[in-house]
């Protein structure tokens, strides 16, 4: 039986292996080691806010740098170091904080290659935590990948399980374009089979997580796990669900989505982001334009509402798309007909 590893340790192992393989890989971020300058004299007190970078500082003291709480400076420094030939992995602790450093990502890193006529190489990876579920309220819980997917020049990676997390992160580190890598906080404890050796998963190749024939669910990140729970419930009711996990939303594997919809004739998109101008609305629009002939029912989106993430557990649990809501949407499209009113 293959080794099991948590999502968090899969991420950690990917960075350890790539730092060992390539001296140009450096890691920087806030408290990625933690403790520098503190009275305990412990320069690796934390290993990251939730521990994803543990052990790196001890092993590679000169290539792992704690930064001040100064996102514009250190995210920009990661971009500049990438332009100068390094392969930086910058940890932007919570994606919610990108508001204070977005310029360096979308006006600098994302545009160098184009603005400079194809003469720039900026291989930077920005790892960041996203998502609700930790009662962390409005400024530490958002699902902001649509903002990045909107920007040409950036690649957006959203792993849903430990195996993909390791393979996609290694691919991201070796990739030559700027990448934003989204890690859902509520997935860190999830365990799965993860090979010890190094491996990569190509971008733009969707994974069919579960095969089925009645309804296609397209989901990313934690929503894949929620959809798997819903699919079990629906199977017991005799509804066969196919789950497509694109794994990267920019680039997006459109073909696998169309093929699945052509087989099932029905589409439900599950997205933890807000519904307007989102990943869900994007996939819905693409399928409506390119696979309309295959649809036998209206497309349905299951998303968070158009509201900030609430604090109170009773409200936050309503905010996140649940397996129950996903199952209800699937039952809805099973009963709906194209051409009929909603």
């Amino acid at each position, binding site marked *: 039986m293959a080794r099991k590893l948590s999502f968090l340790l899969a991420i950690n192992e990917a960075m350890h292996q790539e730092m060992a393989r390539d001296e140009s890989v450096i890691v920087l971020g806030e408290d990625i080691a933690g403790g520098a300058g503190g009275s305990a004299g412990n320069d690796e007190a934390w290993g990251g806010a939730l521990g994803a970078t543990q052990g790196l500082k001890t092993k590679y003291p000169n290539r792992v740098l704690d930064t001040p709480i100064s996102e514009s400076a250190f995210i920009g420094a990661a971009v500049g170091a990438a332009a100068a030939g390094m392969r930086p992995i910058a940890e932007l602790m919570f994606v919610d904080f990108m508001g204070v450093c977005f310029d360096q990502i979308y006006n*600098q890193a994302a545009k*160098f290659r184009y603005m*400079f006529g194809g003469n720039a190489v900026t291989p930077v990876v920005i790892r960041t935590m996203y998502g609700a579920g930790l009662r962390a309220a409005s400024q530490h819980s958002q699902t902001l990948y649509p903002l990045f997917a909107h920007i040409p020049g950036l690649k957006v990676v959203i792993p849903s399980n430990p195996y993909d997390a390791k393979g996609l992160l290694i691919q991201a580190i070796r990739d030559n374009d700027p990448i934003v890598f989204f890690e859902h906080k509520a997935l860190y404890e999830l365990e799965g089979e993860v090979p010890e050796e190094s491996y990569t998963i190509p971008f733009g190749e969707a994974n069919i997580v579960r095969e089925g024939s009645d309804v296609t669910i397209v989901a990313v990140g934690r929503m894949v796990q929620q959809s798997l729970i819903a699919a079990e419930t629906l199977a017991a009711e005799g509804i066969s669900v196919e789950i497509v996990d694109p794994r990267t939303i920019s680039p997006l594997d459109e073909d696998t989505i169309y093929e699945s919809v052509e087989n099932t004739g029905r589409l439900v998109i599950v997205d933890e982001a807000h519904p307007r101008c989102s990943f869900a609305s994007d996939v819905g629009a693409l399928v409506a334009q390119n696979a309309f002939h295959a649809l036998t029912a209206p497309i349905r989106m299951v998303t968070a509402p158009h509201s900030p993430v609430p604090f109170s557990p009773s409200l936050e649990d309503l905010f996140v798309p649940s397996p129950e809501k996903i199952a209800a949407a699937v039952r809805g499209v099973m009963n709906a007909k194209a051409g009929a009113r909603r």
Partner: protein
Amino acid sequence: MTVTAELTQEQLLRGYRTMRTIREFEERLHIEIANAQIPGFVHLYAGEEAVAAGVCASLADTDWVSSTHRGHGHAIAKGCDVKGMMAEIYGRATGLCKGKGGSMHIADFRVGMLGANGIVGGGPPLVCGVGLASKVRGDGTVGVAFLGDGASNQGTFLESLNLSAIWKLPVVFVVENNGYGEATGQAYHQSVADTAKRADGFGLPGITVDGNDFFAVAEAAAEAIARARDGHGPTLLECKTTRFFGHFEGDTQTYRDLSEVTEARASRDCLVSFRARVTRAGLIDAGVLDAMDAEIRQLIDESVVEALAAPFPDASQLTTDVYIKY
């Protein structure tokens, strides 16, 4: 041969050539823009040449600079191809960036030009990264961030002062204080007369020099760059200078008394003072400078003629160069 305290004859000749090339380039653009030949926004560097030339006198191709929206001078001083720059500003396929960048995004990584930048304050964090790469590799390269007095109020700059100081990065921040952030005077937009004083709060040296004096800039920059190269960390170098033209071409400049410019052109022109100093001291013959002037005028003429004759980018270029692989 060292002919001043710090500068070799080669550095002096290169400095003059750089300043004259920038001046001719910018004065010519001013005319061509009035002739409605150039698309978009252009911000001219004329008047500030001594800063770019003086700083870059101590930099090699392997060193890096980040620049600003007013970036032509830095690009020329760092060694970007002048004809490629001109074609870029005209939006032609033969431009340094294939016509995709334009005046505000001229870059050439091969000579360490990290890019003009349309975002005020965009450059300093990038230069921290260049310095970090140098430090991790131990290759002795230096990064210089050029910015204006306007950008010196941006958080990116202040954060970069702190980050570079705590990490002792081999970088220099050069504030070109021309007295205006766009149309707003320095006396209004900051509460210190010398931007260099801001260095005190971050624990790095801050020096103010006359930015119209090539020698003053070159000598202060040489020291700051050597300090960075030797592992002693960053310096903030403020160069007080004058912008001969408006913030952008088309700016009516109703916010300033234009006698400021007349007076600066008459008494603080870096090219005039350079020529007077080196010829009076017998360091360089006036005939050598005259010949260089003629050669540069011809280069700029040719660059305009060639740019106008060059094709615009093909439609197929619209969506190329977005990614290396997508």
